[in-house]
């Protein structure tokens, strides 16, 4: 990697910290490669000297777009604390007046209206996310390792099948998924929700690519010492694969928490609704009449929070990977 690519990226967060206090990622500031302000004394001077019209225009565009991208989320938060009439009469206001908790009370069952059983949805979402993420991290890396390292008959064919399976778009699978769970007699059960999602082809592919990129020497030494294949995998290979496992965990978490179409076609009972399928029903007007916007915004906010937490906590994995992602491609 050339040095020029570094300042804009890795040093970016570090040198940006003062102006963009929001995203002080610790790793950014530890970067020693030197941002534009760090190594080049002239650049700081230049910044002070001119009010560069190009800079002003650049900031103007960025701030305008940041407003367009963030304002909807702010409105969402504010609206969830408004009353129904206020949401309609002051849709743009970010300060609820009066501050109204009825949407939140209703969601958490503190009123007599139980049409939006959000705790059930949350429980189901939590269950599917934990089970699917755990299973995917384990099974995907197991299969990815085998496809990358182990020599066995049918490996090449399996990989070809995997690539083929990966290119099937989700929207094509609605009818097939319904057919198979009905055929197996598990329609509208947790089994139907969980079993088909326990592995995913994309995750196996990511892990295979990762194992392709690391040297075999360490694990070969372990195996020559007589460790079994699984033991080598478990105690030697997996610990080395930590960064990829984090990636896979993020992906699986986000994928299973946000999953919609699969749960839509394999379940129908209200008890099996997740945050996403529940919210989709609520938003499309299946539950109760009236616009109920504060309630809908609150429920949408609840579905956004876990992914947002992961996103902001692990942001450096997102962004750093974004710039260095392809080198092994």
């Amino acid at each position, binding site marked *: 990697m050339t040095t020029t690519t570094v300042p804009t990226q890795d040093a970016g967060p570090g040198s940006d910290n003062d102006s963009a206090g929001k995203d002080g990622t610790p790793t950014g500031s530890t970067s020693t490669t030197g941002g534009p302000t760090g190594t080049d004394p002239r650049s700081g001077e230049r910044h002070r000297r001119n009010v560069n019209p190009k800079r002003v225009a650049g900031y103007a565009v960025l701030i305008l777009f940041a407003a367009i991208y963030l304002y909807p989320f702010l409105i969402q938060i504010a609206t969830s604390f408004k009353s129904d009439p206020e949401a309609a009469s002051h*849709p743009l206001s970010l300060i609820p007046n009066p501050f109204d908790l009825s949407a939140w009370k209703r969601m958490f069952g503190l009123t007599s209206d139980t049409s939006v059983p959000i705790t059930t949805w949350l429980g189901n979402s939590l269950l599917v996310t934990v089970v699917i993420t755990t299973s995917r991290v384990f099974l995907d890396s197991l299969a990815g390792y085998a496809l990358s390292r182990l020599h066995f008959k049918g490996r090449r064919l399996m990989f070809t099948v995997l690539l083929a399976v990966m290119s099937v778009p989700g929207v094509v699978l609605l009818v*097939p998924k319904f057919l198979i769970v009905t055929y197996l007699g598990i329609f509208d059960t947790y089994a139907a929700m969980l079993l088909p999602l326990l592995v995913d082809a994309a995750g196996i592919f990511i892990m295979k690519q990762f194992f392709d990129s690391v040297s075999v020497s360490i694990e070969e030494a372990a195996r020559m010492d007589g460790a079994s294949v699984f033991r080598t995998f478990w105690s030697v290979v997996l610990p080395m694969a930590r960064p990829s496992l984090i990636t896979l965990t993020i992906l699986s978490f986000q994928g299973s928490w946000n999953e*919609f179409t699969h749960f839509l*076609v394999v379940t129908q009972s209200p008890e099996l609704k997740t945050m996403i399928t529940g919210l989709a029903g609520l938003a499309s007007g299946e539950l109760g009449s009236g616009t109920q916007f504060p309630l809908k915004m609150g429920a949408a906010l609840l579905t956004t929070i876990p*992914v947002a937490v992961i996103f902001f906590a692990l942001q450096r994995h997102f962004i750093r990977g974004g710039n260095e992602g392809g080198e092994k491609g």
Partner: protein
Amino acid sequence: MAKRRTSIHGREGIAGWVFTAPAMIILGIFLFVPIVMALWVSMTNWTGNVDPFGGGPNAAFVGPDNYTALFLQDGLARSNFMQSLGNTFYYVLLVVPLQTATSLLLALIVNEKFLRGKSFFRTAFYFPSVTSSIAISTVFLFLFSNTGAVNGFLKLLGIDGPEWFSDSRGLLHMFFGLFGAGDNPAWGQGEIFGRSLWDWLSGPSVAMCVIIVLAVWTTTGTFMLMFLAALQDLPVEVDEAAMLDGVSPWQKLRLVTIPMLKPALFLVITLGIIGTWQVFDQIYVMGKGQPAGTTMTPAFLSYKTSFTSNGWGSGAAIAFVIFLIIVILTGIQRRMMREDKPAGRLRGAASRARLAQSESATATVDLAHTNSGTGPQS
């Protein structure tokens, strides 16, 4: 030595099968087999209440009838399908250029070295891509409601906003109306695939425009990251040479940067086109194809035909038509990417983008694309 190697390989052989077995069994049972089942169903008239493989009047084999009904026979199946194709056509026509231009613009600005706070902006632009499409659609449902934020904003400007979600008027129809073309004029009577020329030329409906705005808004961050990756790959020497030659920034952008971004542009455009064939979640939340079928997409039509109208054969046939279209588009993309031989990060982005097609949410892919490279350096 030779003996030892054989034994290790023998062990490996068994381990290989054991390690891959859970994944292969699950993918086989829940992906491969069901696709074959659905292919069979797409050639039956299954109504949903009997065994789909049992034959009989409600699950009879009808050959390619469901497919020909979509293209060649007059009827509801074709008129619905053709309307969804028309909707998708306008959707592609607006979403792809808008998201490409916006993401390129943002990437170029965020990539400027003299700007501060870029990680904040990058985060702001990317965040919508990782959140649930259902949650975001719900927010947009409020923003564009009759008394919502957008109409509230328009009112500040003295404009009476439309009833976004119930307005089925096509933009082009409204435009023709300005020139006095009445409803369904004589020149628009010719039929193409059973749909009148006038209907084909409707343009996106007002309701569809909301979904277009939503799509651009959610995908821009992802594509911005792809452009950023490509910009990082550009050789510095070119930049310096251009600077020494004294070209203006605009000339540099037009004559140097954009031509060198060609592979990235191609990737973003094809991914954008592929993505538009998979629009489903947004339609489910925002009116399920209403008003007057003007927001119906092929993907949602496949679902509705099967699950709501019990036309399972026809619904499955639509799914396979979408499948075929996406396979062709992906094939074109892979071939072009191979010819262009993009270097480094972008090729990584491309290979990861391939993952996109296996997930309904594009965001997921981008996570993959943004992450899978983190491994080796620690």
